[in-house]
């Protein structure tokens, strides 16, 4: 007994600045739960999963019931949810010719259940790729006044601060609310001041975080993955996702992180809408102008962003920027980036300016070893679609699936931006295409000497071949970066048997 009391006493001394009696602490927690709990909702929906490639025949189409935690962040029914679960990206599974992929169909609508049991329908507004947060809008005939989470805008998380995280049990426990006491274990600089808290993943993702005096500090998210590792900072002007694909690596795993209110406020006022234009400047691999680099380059002071690769025909390229240019000011504001970890912050700042915004940059350019100060005005463009955004079209008779070629694919494979065609995404080994020797990744550029610039044109060519009952087709493809002819034998079904 003595031993047990001693332990309890020691813990209290350590954990609380002012030792409180147990029932005071109980009361505090109760107040927090009362204040924050009603804003925590259950989001439920049915997700359709479809297998592509060889997986397609194995798994076909499957349905999955998903439930997750959401937080009402605006009284008119705006609900914030973790992004990855609600809108998972297509996942490809290895295998050279026989690989496959799993894609997810987003449901038409979502069920939202409040703490008091009230049920609503909601629509997905959109997702912020960088923060991996999504927003749902509850639909209702009458104007809504829901218990929105009341953030404390001025409260800044402190290192070692004790906090309460509110979460939710899974369906088996009736979605009962739960909480956990933890501490802010570090303060991070990227992309803005954030604080990580450990072991709050299961059931706490998306959940509110409050201090013991009842201030709501933010929510638990997964630390945004930035691309500065090795290849230099990405994330500029919405290219985050692009750059991640280009570099093909995700440094470290995501960690549960406290996203403070100042990171969320813009999004809550103006939630991202899917299909809305994502701003894009077209630069990959940004690097901070560190103190050391500034000294070595003979640039008066550190702080700036060195451009790694300016993508062809991108807004940055059109404005005349080149790789190696060092941005020091944008719209008369200094670029105060002197560590590589901070590069993502600059990307976010630019992104907030939106598509069509004109950004006046001051930059240094290396002119035969001497740096000259220059200016350029970049009009932020719209982020080009990625290959994952393209619809896969099944050419079942020929035994392959194809997609339109995007700028992102061409950049990734270092092919000229003017390259046209339809890219083969899946080949059935024993199908006509497979037997003929077409391979996954081939970009079909011609069929029987007629140009193929898109999936639509490819389908038209196949239709013609079918109508003419041609016994063979000659594909002209770009494989890796070399062209090649592929002979495909066809056996279109005789008329009346189709």
């Amino acid at each position: 007994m003595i031993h047990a009391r001693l332990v309890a006493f020691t813990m209290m001394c350590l954990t609380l600045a002012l030792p409180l009696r147990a029932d005071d602490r109980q009361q505090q927690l109760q107040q927090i739960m009362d204040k924050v709990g009603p804003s925590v909702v259950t989001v439920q929906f049915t997700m359709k999963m479809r297998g592509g490639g060889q997986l397609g025949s194995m798994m076909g189409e499957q349905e999955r019931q998903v439930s997750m935690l959401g937080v009402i962040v605006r009284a008119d029914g705006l609900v914030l949810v973790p992004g990855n679960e609600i809108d998972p990206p297509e996942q490809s599974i290895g295998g050279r010719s026989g690989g496959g992929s799993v894609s997810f169909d987003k449901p038409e609508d979502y069920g939202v259940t409040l703490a008091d049991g009230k049920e609503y329908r909601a629509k997905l507004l959109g997702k912020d790729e960088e923060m991996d947060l999504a927003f749902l809008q509850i639909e209702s005939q009458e104007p809504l006044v829901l218990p929105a989470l009341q953030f404390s805008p001025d409260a800044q998380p402190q290192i070692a601060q004790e906090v309460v995280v509110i979460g939710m049990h899974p369906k088996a426990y009736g979605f009962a609310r739960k909480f956990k006491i933890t501490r802010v274990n570090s303060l991070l600089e990227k992309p803005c001041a954030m604080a990580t808290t450990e072991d709050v993943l299961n059931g706490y993702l998306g959940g509110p975080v409050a201090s013991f005096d009842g201030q709501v500090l933010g929510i638990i998210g997964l630390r945004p993955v930035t691309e500065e590792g090795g290849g230099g900072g990405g994330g500029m002007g919405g290219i985050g996702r692009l750059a991640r694909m280009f570099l093909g690596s995700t440094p470290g795993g995501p960690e549960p992180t406290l996203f403070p209110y100042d990171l969320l406020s813009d999004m809550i006022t103006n939630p991202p809408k899917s299909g809305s234009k994502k701003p894009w400047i077209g630069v990959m691999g940004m690097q901070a102008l560190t103190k050391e680099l500034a000294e070595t380059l003979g640039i008066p002071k550190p702080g700036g962003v060195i451009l790694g690769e300016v993508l062809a025909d991108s807004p940055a390229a059109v404005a005349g920027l080149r790789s190696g240019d060092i941005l020091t000011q944008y719209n008369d504001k200094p670029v105060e980036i002197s560590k590589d970890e901070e590069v993502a912050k600059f990307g976010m700042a630019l992104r907030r300016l939106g598509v069509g915004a004109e950004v006046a940059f001051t930059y240094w350019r290396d002119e035969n070893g001497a740096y000259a100060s220059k200016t350029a005005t970049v009009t932020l463009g719209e982020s080009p679609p990625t290959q994952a955004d393209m619809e896969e079209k099944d050419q079942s008779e020929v035994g392959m699936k194809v997609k339109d070629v995007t700028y992102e694919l061409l950049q990734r494979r270092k092919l000229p931006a003017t390259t046209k065609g339809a890219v083969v995404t899946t080949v059935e080994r024993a199908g006509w295409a497979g037997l003929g020797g077409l391979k996954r990744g081939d970009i079909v550029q011609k069929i029987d000497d007629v140009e193929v610039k898109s999936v639509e044109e490819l389908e038209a060519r196949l239709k013609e071949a079918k109508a003419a009952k041609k016994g063979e087709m000659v594909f002209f493809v770009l494989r890796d970066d070399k062209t090649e002819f592929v002979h495909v034998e066809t056996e279109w079904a005789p008329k009346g048997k189709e």
Partner: protein
Amino acid sequence: MPALCLLAQGSDEAAPAGTLGVEAGLEARIQQARDRVYPALVNIQPVRDEYVGGKKVQRTATGSGVIFDTQGHAVTNYHVAGKAKKLIVTLSNKEKIHADLVGGDPWTDIAVIKLRIEEYKGTEAIRPAAFGRSALLVEGDFVMAMGSPLALARSISFGVVSCRDRALGSDMELEDFQRTGSFNTWIQTDAAINPGNSGGPMVNLAGEVVGINARGNSGANNIGFAIPIDIVKEVIDQILKTGTVTRSWIGAEWQPIDQFEEHFQVSGGRGVLLGHVIPGGPAAKAGLQPGDILLTYDGAPVSARFTEQLPDLEKRIADTPVGKEVSLHVLRGGTETELTLTTIRLEEGAGEDYECKAWEFTVKGITSEMARDLKLEAPKGVLVTGSQAAGDARKAGLDNGDVLLEVGGKPVGSLEEFIGAYEQFVDEKRAKVLIKILKSARTQRLVVLEAEYEKKSDEKRPEEAGTEGKEN
């Protein structure tokens, strides 16, 4: 039937009749054939520099070879002796002598070495082996593989020609960026070929060398490949004359016409299909396009209906004198046109290696072939091939696959320029060097290399002296 004929020839008057006699006759033939080549069979232990983990190390291996003239020249594989600094040769009578590299050709994986006969202490004369003609081989012919499998010198294995013209594709790499085997098909055999057999002779029952054993298939049983001796003879001739093999290049990639004959309206086994034209190469400059059917090259008709015929065409093109204006007849869209192109010299695929000892990393010069592989705009800069753990270069962020463009403000267009800049900065003991790189041969980045010159002189020397263990 051929086997029986051979046996009849081999069965001497002493051989008893019946099955036993057939066996004895064959054995006698094999042993006669062996005796003709065995004295010329050598085990080769090369010592060469390899660039591993950011530093130059000396490594050794075991290979095989065969002496082909009275001056003591022996032929082996490029991958055995082509980059050797030192060669220790053991004859089949167990006598050891040193040898020197005469020249090598990575494209056919052939090297020629010369034994220092003056060192020879044996009593019997060194007898060179005779070359046969690989063109006369047919499937089923008896052959022996001689050499040092797994370093077990003086070994003989026996089998048949499994296939006389195996096409192994043109994508085989001898080392990074160095393709090989583009100019020949291979003799496939079930005579056991293991690591260490490389460079050893494939011998027919007449006791002639008909191939140079070069590779086996580790995932299978009894599938080994030899380079046909007809090709090897030409390579040896050139190496003996000039120390190297000069070839032409036109920058075109061909496909067999077979399945495409109907589509492109060609018949009679004529022509070869042009699949890819390398931008900026002679074929591109001459106006050749994918889809063209090449009918004649330099006045002679061309035919490649099957993949197995492509190496022959590649060789014909390569054998054109460098810089020659060649006329071509091409079928394009059903009509014949004549074009003229000027060949250029085929470069080696892989650039030269270099160790930057003071900065603790290794680089390689960038050839045109490497620039294409790395998808660089031009063959500029040097490629980082390794950086030592916790070394200066690694700390600065340099690693495999990075391309160095500028060092200390100096553009390094070639390996020579790079070495010039490097040596100058090391002489100056420059503490901080700004290096402009293409990270992963793609994204430009600036790094500052902080060099510590003091520690190296003490630590590095003993390590350099050590040599690595034996490998096959």
